[in-house]
């Protein structure tokens, strides 16, 4: 029964992405990207990824959209038509997509409980985290403890982004002298 929801959601996502890609108005495209990440948040929910969905809803639909609007407000909100040849990009995209589809042919079936990822490392987290960490949310246990170092890296990434943006733009209060 959730197959129907799957298909409906995925087709919504497809339409949104297609429209976002085709749209000349950058503003419209940004809005549609917001919708797209919102839909993917819904899709994550259906796949039981509550935390991911939470993050995607907050980041994709919130912060990313605001930042993109901030950029558009400083630049231009209309895309120009380019007269590039589209053949090479199309070729690259088709080859990449083809390789990926070739790869899906031997993938474990969608939601197959016997797939390797459900039998190898993950059971440890599910079975032992209650006793070892004592935190109900397994995602938090894995994120902060079992793979805590990844999360340290993640914080470092966001810190890097902060440093980078500060390096590029300077902070906050507008200064009348440029900070080139």
């Amino acid at each position, binding site marked *: 029964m959730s197959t129907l929801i799957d298909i409906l959601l995925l087709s919504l996502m497809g339409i949104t992405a297609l429209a976002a890609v085709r749209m000349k108005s950058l503003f419209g495209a940004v809005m549609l990207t917001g919708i797209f990440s919102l839909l993917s948040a819904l899709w994550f929910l259906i796949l039981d990824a509550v935390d991911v969905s939470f*993050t995607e809803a907050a980041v994709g639909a919130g912060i990313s959209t605001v930042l993109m609007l901030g950029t558009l407000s400083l630049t231009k909100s209309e895309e120009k038509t380019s007269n590039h040849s589209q053949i090479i990009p199309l070729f690259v995209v088709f080859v990449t997509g083809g390789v990926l589809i070739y790869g899906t042919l031997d993938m474990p079936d969608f939601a197959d409980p016997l797939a390797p990822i459900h039998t190898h490392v993950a059971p440890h987290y599910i079975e032992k985290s209650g006793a070892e960490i004592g935190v109900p949310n397994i995602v938090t246990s894995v994120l*902060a403890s079992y793979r805590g170092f990844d999360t340290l890296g993640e914080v470092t990434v966001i*810190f890097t982004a902060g440093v980078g943006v500060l390096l590029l733009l300077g902070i906050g209060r507008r200064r009348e002298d440029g*900070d080139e």
Partner: protein
Amino acid sequence: MTHHFILRVITKLLIPLILLFALYVQFHGDFGPGGGFQAGVIIAAALVLYALVFGLNTASAVIKEWVLLVLIPLGVLIYAGVGVASLLLGGNYLDYNVLAHDPVHGQHLGILLVELGVGMTVAAVLTTIFFAFAGRGHRDANGNLLPHSALSDEIRNRKDGQP
């Protein structure tokens, strides 16, 4: 048109609630969905809302630049510092078991601190990034700020390209 008090009143009403919800998310990441990152994003969203409605100057008077610049590294330092603490207490890096007498307690304490660091850095970084974008203003190639009146009509009165 001089008063946009609806937005102001509603924002005043909402911001404490949003912040409260964010901190709830921060501290209940153990039990349900959420955690430091999500909380940080929501806090940043609340501050962005404040800056949008009350103006960037007001916002950066409330949340000073130096505060943000302290919070950003502090979060990372808290996270990395928990790891160093566990090193000093004789465990491996980021081994929270040694932080308290009882491993489960240690884990709990470690996760709490670590998530706090994450939330701090994320909230501060995202707010800073927004301030940086909003405070940038329109500049010419030499980096000089253009006054609002010098902006092209295209920017001042945005119209959609679609018919």
